[in-house]
């Protein structure tokens, strides 16, 4: 496989996979929590939280990337704090690419999960509580299994979005080969040099294969879940 990809191209593919995977897995618990809060709780600031979550969907990605640079850059107020206390740096690192991808993909993830939470009948949860289950237990044994298809769909969507994220990433962490050059950045860079068409072609094929693979996988798992739940 490495024979027909140059080390640089291979690096970009591996980095994109790692960035997308980390972005999806780390944002999933927060995504489930926010989706649950938006679906089930009424609290002051409900509309504000909803707007904030969806903001990356409607803002120009360049703006999101610039805002990230302001807040999570080394001199930004969150970035400076994380660097000083935990030695965690986002700007111009692959972790920054993961952060940008996670934030851009977050609205898609939350929407998918929220829809399935709203479809779960609260009466089932009330029934579980009369049987002796505490609220965390009800969530773990009733709600979570029933929203599994939504969690799955949300994760696949988020992963695909993260694989394709370009604007916010390149603004926030630039496109340093081997460091922050993800697949879309690599394709863009290759298009800027003469004779890069062959490499672009190879990367495009890989992008399509990964996207198709993710879709098929999620469909297959979705069918398994549906069979387990019994289509009730």
């Amino acid at each position, binding site marked *: 496989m490495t024979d027909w990809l140059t080390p640089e191209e291979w690096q970009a593919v591996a980095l994109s996979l790692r960035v997308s995977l980390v972005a999806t897995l780390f944002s999933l618990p927060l995504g489930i929590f926010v989706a649950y809060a938006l679906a089930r709780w009424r609290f002051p600031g409900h509309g504000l939280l909803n707007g904030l979550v969806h903001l990356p969907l409607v803002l120009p990605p360049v703006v999101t990337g610039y805002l990230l640079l302001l807040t999570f850059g080394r001199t930004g107020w969150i970035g400076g704090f994380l660097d000083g206390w935990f030695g965690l740096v986002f700007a111009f690192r692959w972790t920054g690419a993961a952060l940008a991808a996670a934030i851009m993909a977050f609205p898609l993830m939350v929407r998918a999960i929220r829809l399935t939470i709203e479809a779960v009948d609260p009466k089932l949860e*009330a029934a579980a509580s*009369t049987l002796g289950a505490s609220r965390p237990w009800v969530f773990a*044994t009733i709600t979570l299994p029933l929203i599994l298809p939504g969690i799955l769909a949300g994760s696949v969507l988020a992963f695909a979005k993260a694989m394709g994220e370009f604007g916010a990433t390149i603004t926030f962490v630039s496109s340093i080969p081997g460091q922050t050059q993800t697949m879309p950045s690599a394709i863009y860079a290759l298009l800027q040099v003469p004779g890069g068409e062959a490499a672009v072609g190879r990367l495009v094929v890989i992008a399509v294969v990964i996207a198709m693979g993710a879709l098929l996988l999620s469909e297959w798992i979705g069918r398994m879940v549906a069979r387990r739940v019994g289509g009730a």
Partner: protein
Amino acid sequence: MSLAVSLKHRFGTFRLDVDFEAPAGVTALYGRSGSGKTTMVNAVAGLLKPDAGIVSVDGVTLTDINAGLFVPPHKRRIGYVFQEPRLFPHLSVRSNLIYGARFAGLQDEREFDRIVGLLGIGTLLDRRPSKLSGGEKSRVALGRAILSKPRLLLMDEPLAALDEARKAEILPYFERLRDETGLPILYVSHSPAEVARLATTVVLVEDGRVAAIGAAAEVFSDPGAAHALGLREAGAVLTARIEAQEADGLTRLSTSAGPLLLPAVNGPPGTMVRVRLLAQDVMLATDKPSGISALNVLPARVRDIREGEGPGALVRLEAGDEIILARITRRSASALDLAPGRSVHAILKAVSIARESVGEI
């Protein structure tokens, strides 16, 4: 078991203000739709926090709003069978049944087998709820609530969603449950037939208030409760013993009011049954009638007469140890010169039958 409930709650224009105590056995909350029955049961279960009030079961206080006490539902040990079965779709029947058992402490294999046998759901254990019929779902929901080892079982019209055939399939299981587990039950219903068949105590609810409370036979034959019951539903509940099955399909029963002949009542001689006599199905005659098609004529004595606003009157009769209620017109009452103490003959046109175990009442 004793259940003490005192609740005040309002939402919108509806106001609930009830106060009652119920002894052991099956207590029926009976009333029209919208009279506040489900609100009461939800407050007992802890699914609804009332504006004010107290709920205590067996001396254990679960809600006391003034004292700031409100035990959450999962710590109440009160089983709840809802109007819909509410089975967990992602779990098998077996997993549904044992869902509550793990919170009740040790799982008891023998108790599981006993309840499964009692409800006749042994062949369904590995199925998904979506593969069950309506009646089967109801039985599984009932078993799930019982196996959580509650100290009180709430049932909110558990048969309402079922057709008549399914109801007839489930009712015997409820009766077996009542008789074999001794579990105290608070049963919500707007079906007088179900209540007459199952209940030890009836709490009559009307517009968010308790209109009457007492033994089923008393409440159903109380002319004062007739309005809340609905005039068509007022009537007596007699205790009868099956004497013989006759060759022509009739069953001969004995009551303290006299013998009765009814169409096919199932059960061997000696079985005790409840017989519900609707007031509108009872005719009165001052002389013993002859040449009449009705098979059942019981001698009785007028206890009192209550005249309503319309043309009707409710006549309460004493027959043996039983009370019988007859609904006739005021015109007939004066034409027959009915008055307390007067001897009459009660002629029974039709009856609905509720079977009941030996030894109760």
